[in-house]
């Protein structure tokens, strides 16, 4: 066989300038009889294409709620959220092709085996032949570091780390350009968490994904994110690189990053991966 002719894809800059996610003046209020709890007040956040943005904040600051609002699973009380320039409600129709979500506990369909879980969204298109779908699901399965023989297992027979991997494979099946991760490394052993980070970094590089991640794991945070957004006082108080965020004078940030665990993780802080130019896909 002759050498394939390989040219280099155009190194597009920031694309056409459109952001992956834009959140403007967002209010979230939880109403219970006789009590109103304001979770977000005039929250603004912009997520650019091709970056890995981590959402950080104390418990109950509405990080997961924000992810759910990006997905269109919850409606903000006021304000607007747009994903690739469209309202999130319009996303659910186009479905898994635009946004992939890794839920905190995997949310695998317990009645299906691993392969059917991964293939579900493709199969729902009801267009592609079954053999192709199976092949594609098998490729995803191995991309996330599982072996082909795991394909026939049921979710109840999987360990926590394997559930996360299968859930990630399921989120990736349609090659959605936006990937949301809720606590991707929670409940994994350190080695498993490292592997998971490597996996995510590789995928981010290869697929040029935009990743939004909620995490409490400082190692993951410094390891993966190109930018960090800190949620406190019901809004995003600062977004920036790890160094910029750590330098920001705010009691929460000082406590969060300057505590013992934060110090240790920050020591290991190396240059986070640069946002890859969104290569052509």
């Amino acid at each position: 066989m002759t050498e394939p002719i390989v040219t280099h894809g155009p190194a597009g800059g920031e694309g056409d300038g459109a952001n992956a996610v834009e959140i403007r003046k967002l209010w979230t209020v939880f109403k219970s009889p006789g009590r109103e709890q304001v979770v977000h007040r005039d929250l603004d956040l912009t997520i650019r294409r091709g970056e890995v943005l981590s959402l950080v904040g104390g418990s109950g600051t509405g990080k997961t709620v924000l992810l759910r609002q990006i997905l269109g699973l919850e409606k903000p009380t006021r304000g607007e959220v747009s994903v690739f320039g469209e309202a999130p409600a319009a996303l659910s129709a186009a479905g898994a092709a635009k946004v992939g979500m890794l839920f905190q506990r995997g949310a695998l369909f317990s009645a299906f085996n691993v392969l059917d879980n991964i293939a579900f969204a493709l199969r729902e298109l009801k267009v592609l032949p079954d053999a192709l779908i199976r092949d594609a699901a098998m490729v995803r399965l191995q991309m996330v570091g599982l072996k082909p023989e795991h394909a026939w297992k049921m979710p109840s027979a999987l360990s926590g780390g394997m559930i996360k991997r299968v859930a990630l494979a399921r989120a990736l099946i349609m090659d959605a350009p936006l990937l949301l991760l809720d606590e991707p490394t929670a409940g994994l052993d350190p080695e498993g968490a490292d592997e998971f980070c490597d996996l995510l970094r590789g995928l981010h590089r290869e697929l040029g994904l935009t990743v939004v991640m909620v995490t409490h794991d400082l190692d993951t945070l410094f390891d993966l994110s190109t930018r960090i957004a800190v949620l406190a006082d019901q809004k995003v108080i600062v977004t920036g690189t790890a160094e910029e965020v750590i330098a920001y004078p705010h009691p929460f940030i000082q406590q969060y990053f300057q505590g013992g665990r934060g110090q240790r993780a920050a020591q290991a802080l190396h240059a986070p991966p640069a946002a890859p130019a969104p290569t052509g896909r």
Partner: protein
Amino acid sequence: MSSSVPAQASPTPRLPGAAAQRAGAPRLDAGAAAGEAGTWVRVGGGWTALGFSSARDWRALSEMLAAHPPSDALGWDLREMAQFDHIGAQVLWNHWQHRWPAHVALDTSQQAVLDQVAQFSVPVAPAPGPTLLDHLRHFAGQGQHLVDTSRRFTQLIGQFVLDVGRLLAAPHRGPWRDLSGALYNTGATAMPITALVGLLIGVVLAYLTSQQLRQYGAESFIVNILGLSLVRELGPVLAAVLVAGRSGSAITAQIGVMRVTEELDAMRVMGIPHGFRLVMPRVLALAVAMPLISIWTSAAALVGGMMAAQLALDISPSYFLQALPRAVPISNVILALSKSAVFGILIALIACYHGMRVLPNTESLGQRTTSSVVISITVVILVDALFAVLFKGVGFR
């Protein structure tokens, strides 16, 4: 046939998402050349999962692909493709029969995607299906399964008896709040529906029998027929069937979800026994509530029968009520009450048993809830037949 070599890969915007609509359907253009000798196929359009989502486009593409089977003479030029993802790569790779064609022109990112697909595309072994031996083993396991089930159910009954003993020994430490909650949920909230169903059954039964009775001029016997059948048989069985459908399924689902979410394990770790805190309150609650509901249903059915008797046969309610104690000896009521208590205990035990046996998946939860209701109703009717045979000399005049 030949044209100039494209110096750069196509400058089409390669943005995912929003660009997908612009990119157009995936397509093949034959005949154009990429500069080298031989025949080339230009691959264009959006080769993404979204691009394949239209059945029409997919059919068109399948035809185009079929028209260009992979061969050594054919080159593939991917550089005009607007978008390319793993699904698109999989389509191409499968079309190339899992090996690189002799001539191919592509850019680095496309090669990366194709490399990954090539690396991980393995022949899919089909799901290991059951063999004849498995079927045989499954059949042979049925006997063992039956033995196991009866042993476990007996264990559950034994544990219940022990728990009741424990409650009697130390009543102040009993789960009274659980008991009263279960009593309210299974008893008080079942009253409207049982009353409605009982009333309608009473009306129907009265109308049907009045037709026959009038032919023989035996109108006044409607009191005997309605009284005996409703108090002794229909009331308890009707109430038991309704409660099995209502509360039995609720108990199974509740305990089953607790099992799926590991709440049962958490309780066990804290040293709180399931039997004492979950099973016994529910069984006792149904043992108390079931006779009351059964009397309530019978009463509603008698009211319905009374109304229908007045309308159809001109038998006044006052005569009906006077004649009722003479037609239906009190032993029938006692029989109905004790029968209902047994029904209640059985329904609750069966529901708890199935709830405890739920496996951690949604399918099992559905199956167990279904079998809980079906088995309870069957058992209720079986036990009712047993009562009818055993007490055939009681309560008749």
